[in-house]
């Protein structure tokens, strides 16, 4: 019987803690100030592009764009994502003529401007490589987009874990949605069409 009572106390205790946590989250003034309570993705940045230009969020205002975190020592998901969005843009034809895709390297130690230029250039001229100048700049950019990246050792060196979705941002630079490799080309292109139709 004692054991049963203990279970009951613990359960009520747990419910009390969860309720308190929920109330805190719901009533937390900082959260309600944000209006929607949805974590914001995107924001100010300024990074060097593969052609030596500096690209900032302010430069991108007025038109929707896409942004991807990747690296050139990536055998699968990065080339596939870039190939897919290239195909999607080509399928949309004139509607995607001025669309721009930014490939932010999470491996600035190896991905030089020259290498990124060759890499993104082998897909489409509308893709621009962006290179954080150091770890701090990369960390800040990842925070801005709530992206994850992590260096992982391998027998011969290292590889990078990273967020693999393509971020779609609207003309105000606000998060609009994502493109995912698991989606069909039809789904991805319908999304892009809707995003581009806003401008």
């Amino acid at each position: 019987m004692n054991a049963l009572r203990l279970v009951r106390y613990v359960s009520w205790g747990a419910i009390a803690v969860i309720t308190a946590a929920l109330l805190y989250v719901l009533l937390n003034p900082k959260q309600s100030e944000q209006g929607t309570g949805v974590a914001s993705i995107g924001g100010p940045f300024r990074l060097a592009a593969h052609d030596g230009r500096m690209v900032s969020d302010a430069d991108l205002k007025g038109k929707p764009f896409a942004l991807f975190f990747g690296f050139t020592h990536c055998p699968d998901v990065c080339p596939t994502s870039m190939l897919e969005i290239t195909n999607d843009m080509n399928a949309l034809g004139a509607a995607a003529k001025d669309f721009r895709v930014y490939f932010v390297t999470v491996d600035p130690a190896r991905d030089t401007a020259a290498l990124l230029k060759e890499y993104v250039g082998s897909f489409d001229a509308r893709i621009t490589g962006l290179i954080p100048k150091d770890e701090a700049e990369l960390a800040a950019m990842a925070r801005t987009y709530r992206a994850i990246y992590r260096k992982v050792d391998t027998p011969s060196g290292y590889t990078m874990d990273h967020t693999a979705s393509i971020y779609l941002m609207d003309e105000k630079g606000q998060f609009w949605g994502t493109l995912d490799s698991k989606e069909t080309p039809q789904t991805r292109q319908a999304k892009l069409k809707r995003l581009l139709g806003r401008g």
Partner: protein
Amino acid sequence: MAIPFRAVLCASLLVFSSLSALAHDYKIGDLKIDHPWARATPGGAKVGGGFMKITNTGTLPDRLIGGTALVSNIFEVHEMKMEGNVMKMRALDKGLEIKPGETVELKPGGYHVMFIDLKSPLKEGEKVRGTLVFERAGTVEVEYKVEPRGASPAQTHDHGAHAGGHKH
């Protein structure tokens, strides 16, 4: 007696085509390696992925523990996984196990061999020569067919003869 030229041509074509299909299956010990292929790499890329199916027809487990490729300085056996929307790749320290009676497919988004530090880009239509090293079965020479960028396993199995029923 004269054998018509056309018959000779047909016969040699038959032999040639079956040879080329055969040439893409490899056997070592109890292991059968089916259709090694790779994807063409983008400009500047220093790595490429290799894929295949490995079947263990024996009664003992085996492991793919390494290999070589003429196009790269380093060769590793890797696993790729998506966790949520995060791509994670790991080298398989103990190799890739092929259990008796099972077929393991190396394919995009999963297990693959990595050609690291490529000497030249992988170009569509090329063949990449190398070896696979198994713990029990030993070393076997293989040739990877380089498919277009973004190719998937279904698209690469156009031989019919050994594609397990895939026909296009």
